[in-house]
């Protein structure tokens, strides 16, 4: 799939954000396409969280333009962003561990039956849908009644992703979904990122792990000290280049040199 023949669903142009006299983001350009995984890579303090918060409606950009499906927009709250189809899955704050899988799946969007204001849950529909939707994403659960805390970290993230996709997210923002996970668990999450991509969702994958990004990404944007320092497309980049660019190229060379000097002693 190439970026040239589709219009971006979400576009940032010259976006900046400052808190008082601290500039967190400056002149950031970002284009996100449906059915593609856009990776935003950055080390600690690069401005990843600020960028997520602007995208998900927590903060407003201080400058620049934010367009969604070609229209310039401004969000006042995360609910606003959700209503426009932008869903954010936060790293550890996506699910309630003691609640069952199906209750988590429909949390905040409970299906109701009979007279809606009474708020009676349509439990059969909820359980069946949760099971079917998770199966669609390749998560086969014996029982959606089990507490979501009994699932592994990767599976929990996967449920959160499936939930966002089911509730009509066009843009799915994933905040460091693999950072707290082991190798196998990360693999599971990466698989679901691709499953969401297959369904035409524009995925924004925010991470500091170039290895994970390289496995699933179509576009790579590098964030460093609040600026977009580089961007790549999948076909034209190698993993090594990505790692190099992420660590600031020359900086990593110096570091490697210094480490080698120490080791030779």
């Amino acid at each position, binding site marked *: 799939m190439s970026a040239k023949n589709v219009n971006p669903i979400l576009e940032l142009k010259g976006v900046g954000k400052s808190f008082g006299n601290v500039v967190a983001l400056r002149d950031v350009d970002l284009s996100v396409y449906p059915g593609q995984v856009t990776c935003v890579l950055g080390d600690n303090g690069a401005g990843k969280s600020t960028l997520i918060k602007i995208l998900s409606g927590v903060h407003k950009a201080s400058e620049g333009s934010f367009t969604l499906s070609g229209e310039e927009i401004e969000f006042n709250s995360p609910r606003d962003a959700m209503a426009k189809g932008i869903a954010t899955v936060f790293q550890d704050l996506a*699910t309630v*561990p003691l609640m069952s899988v199906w209750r988590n799946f429909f949390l*905040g969007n409970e299906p109701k039956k009979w007279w809606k204001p009474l708020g009676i849950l349509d439990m059969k529909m909820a359980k069946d849908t949760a099971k079917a939707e998770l199966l669609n994403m390749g998560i086969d659960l014996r029982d959606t009644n089990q507490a979501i805390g009994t699932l592994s970290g990767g599976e929990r993230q996967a449920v959160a992703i499936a939930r966002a996709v089911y509730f009509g997210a066009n843009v799915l923002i994933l905040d460091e979904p693999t950072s707290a996970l082991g190798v196998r668990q990360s693999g599971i999450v990466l698989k679901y990122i691709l499953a969401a991509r297959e369904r035409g969702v524009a995925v924004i994958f925010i991470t500091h792990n170039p290895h994970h990004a390289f496995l699933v990404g179509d576009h790579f944007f590098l964030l460093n000290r609040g600026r977009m320092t580089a961007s790549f497309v999948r076909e034209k980049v190698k993993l090594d280049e990505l790692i190099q660019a992420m660590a600031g190229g020359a900086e990593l060379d110096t570091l490697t040199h210094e480490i080698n000097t120490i080791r030779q002693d």
Partner: protein
Amino acid sequence: MSPLTTTKSDERVQRVSFLTKALRRPELGALVGALVIFTIFAVVDTTGHFADLQGAAGWTHFAAPIGITAIFVALLMIGGEFDLSSGVMVGTAGLLMGNLVSEAGMGVFPAMLITLVFAGLVGFANGYLVIRTGLPSFIVTLATFFVLKGVNLAVTKLITGTVRVDGIDKGDGFEIARDWFATKIDIAGAQFQVSLFWWIGFTIFATWLLTRTAFGNWIFASGGDANAARNAGVPVARTKITLFVMTSVAAALVGAMTLLELRGMQAGQGIGQEFYYIIAAAVGGTLLTGGAGSAIGASIGAAIMGFAAIGIPYALWDQDWVATFLGVILFLAVLVNTWLSKQAKGARK
């Protein structure tokens, strides 16, 4: 987890699933405990009436007022908050309603309505202050507790000159109200308080609310992880404030029932009851950290208190030991419940 889960045999998968299912029920521990305690008291009983209908009329009379409030205290605790003012609210409500009838000359039903609305406002204040200040509800409602405790005594003395409100039985509609809220009903020769039926009704209502409605989902989520709930779009503040209002109104209803039954109210009524409610909820499998529990569990907890209150004198033991007994039960029950919830949570990564 256990090596069982790694084995890929169908029978074993079934077995683990069944076990997990049983462990997941929060009221399981309480139910088993209640059966054991009931059996023990039935065995040591010297009157021959503990296990029959008369005994049941006795322990339900004690347990129903505790149960009615404890159910809503449990919902509030599942939602992640405490209400230490729920006990004193029983007294406040009874005194307010009594004074409205005997001093202000109002009818019993209008007085009761005003009392319930007043309790709702106190509950709203509790909830609003907890949300707005971000202080723990333990502190906020402890403050409410002491404020109301002082008001109960001071205002009662100011109005009646004594520490008691009387004369409710002279109010309009007293007999009808008593028929509804404080009469005795004969079942096969045993005199059951009508509060038993209110208790059963509220248990069913609260269980339905908690497990079958969207609001119930929000209660679990607000107490389980308020941040995750907010991220998913749950109105956490509204949910919690509603729970505070419900708890306060339930306590006030118990206050009104007590007033109608006793035809009067002491200024110190209800104080200390908040701990009975919390014990009943905790014994019934409600997590003190919020996020899990059941209304049926709280009712079972209240029933266990009824067993002790009747069973201990029936065994001709000194009644002073009731509190000690409840203390031990509380500790054991929470110990077991915590272990059970760990099993249900599973290994987290």
